[in-house]
């Protein structure tokens, strides 16, 4: 099973990085993200980069953008280019195809996130001089966890949007709609009754950063699992062909 997942990832990455049509674009956008997150922003922020969790949280999910094209293309693209049915006619188990598609995107996006964290540390050590500096272990672990979970969530949503879409473009539009909902979710707070709002605000004020982060991570994990199980539910060989 793991072997089959790896085979799928191998194929996805092969298309992503080495093909003439896409490979150069992938490399370029990867380099741009690495440049921004690993060099430009750390230089702007300075030594606080290692200690300011919020700065990091704001940027840590940026590599998600790298994976949006990939996940929306995952099934819809194969359907559009007429390779899906042949893939489904192989011995690959459903789970391997689905997990391979999700993981190929997650590992790429998260890999870039981890690389940029490390590159940022290198950049800052070089530019600031003095003794070696690094993120504190809990801070580093949180950053890794946060970017993994957020990449996972969006990869899952993208694949979900792609499963039954006729074209990659249509999948992209569906994902955009989902993202829009996420974006405007915080604005929904104003429609809550006033006393509810006060209670929520009060509760938030009393929390320390660690609890907030723990809450966010917990929620992300739950969302991840929910989206993944939705993907599994919607992934049925017969249903994928009917479109």
């Amino acid at each position: 099973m793991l072997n089959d997942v790896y085979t799928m990832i191998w194929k996805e990455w092969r298309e992503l990085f080495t093909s003439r049509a896409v490979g150069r674009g992938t490399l370029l956008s990867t380099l741009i993200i690495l440049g921004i997150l690993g060099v430009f922003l750390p230089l702007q922020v300075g030594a606080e980069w290692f200690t300011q969790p919020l700065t990091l949280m704001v940027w840590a999910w940026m590599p998600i953008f790298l994976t949006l094209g990939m996940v929306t293309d995952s099934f819809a693209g194969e359907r559009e280019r007429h390779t899906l049915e042949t893939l489904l006619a192989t011995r690959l188990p459903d789970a391997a195809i689905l997990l391979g598609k999700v993981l190929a995107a997650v590992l790429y996006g998260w890999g870039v996130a981890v690389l940029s964290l490390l590159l940022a540390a290198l950049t800052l050590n070089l530019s600031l001089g003095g003794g070696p500096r690094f993120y504190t272990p809990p801070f580093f672990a949180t950053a890794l966890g946060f970017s993994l979970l957020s990449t996972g969530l969006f990869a899952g949503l993208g694949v979900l949007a792609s499963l039954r879409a006729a074209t990659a473009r249509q999948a992209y539009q569906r994902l955009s709609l989902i993202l829009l909902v996420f974006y405007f979710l915080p604005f929904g707070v104003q429609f809550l009754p006033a006393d509810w709002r006060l209670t929520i605000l009060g509760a938030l004020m009393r929390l320390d950063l660690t609890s907030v982060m723990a809450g966010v991570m917990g929620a992300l994990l739950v969302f991840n699992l929910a989206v993944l199980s939705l993907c599994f539910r919607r992934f049925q060989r017969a249903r994928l062909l009917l479109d």
Partner: protein
Amino acid sequence: MSQYAIRTEHLSRAFGALRAVEDLTLEVPAGILFGFLGPNGAGKTTTIRLLLGLLPPTAGTAFVLGYDVRTQANAIRARCGALLEHAGLYERLSAADNLEFFGRVARLPRDERQARIRQLLTDLGLWERRGEPVVTWSRGMKQKLAIARALLHRPDLLFLDEPTAGLDAVSAAALREDLVRLARQEGITIFLTTHNLSEAERLCQQVAVIREGRLLAVGSPEALRRQRRAPVHLVTSGLTPAVLEGLRATFGVEVIQSGEADGHWAVNLGPQQSVAPLVAYLVQHGVAVEEVRREHVSLEEVFLSLVQENEHAE
């Protein structure tokens, strides 16, 4: 494995009110090239999807290589190769990478995989161009590559859905040649759909004809042709109206004057009737028989008359 590569019993698949495959009962012996013939929309592709477990049947059952399509589709897919409606190649990847991927999918060990890829590509004359992205290839080359992909893991059964559709006559002939050679080399069963009758006649030991999801006929192309009444042309002299009447009465055949010239007759024999007794009868009655010629019925004519007969029946 049983003697049948494929066995279906009342296999049916409906899409809403449309019955794409209806009550299909069929046996495909192992080791032959089997042709599945039918006009567009007859249900050929749907049948292949049912047999590969890509679509669940709405009724009936099917066993492929002894496995139940409803419950053992994974085992079926592991032992079959398929070239479906579309070549199904990753066009952004090179030919070698395409085969590498499907070789890994089939879990061929590295050395074996590489040797097999080399053997197949060399055999099909594609080895030199293995590094090129498939998108740059001609349709004929892509179809060959797709066949290599389908054969890569040495399947017991190969499904080919209209493999020569869209190819020019030369590439189609080349592909057919490769197919027959490879089939023999690998000793596998091939289930091939086509609406090209001369293709089926040339390639297949057995054919089935379907239309609107229903099986109309099955057998060797030879046998199907024999079922049709092929007129026998006679050139005679001294055939009197009395002898003609006797001929009709004795054999129960239709004899008509063919337009060519005096003394030219066309006799419509029944499916099982042979010409010899007829000629003997004529000679006995003092008719000189100068020429006897049996008309050749192509599979295409058989096919057309089957399809049309069925149309009238409705």
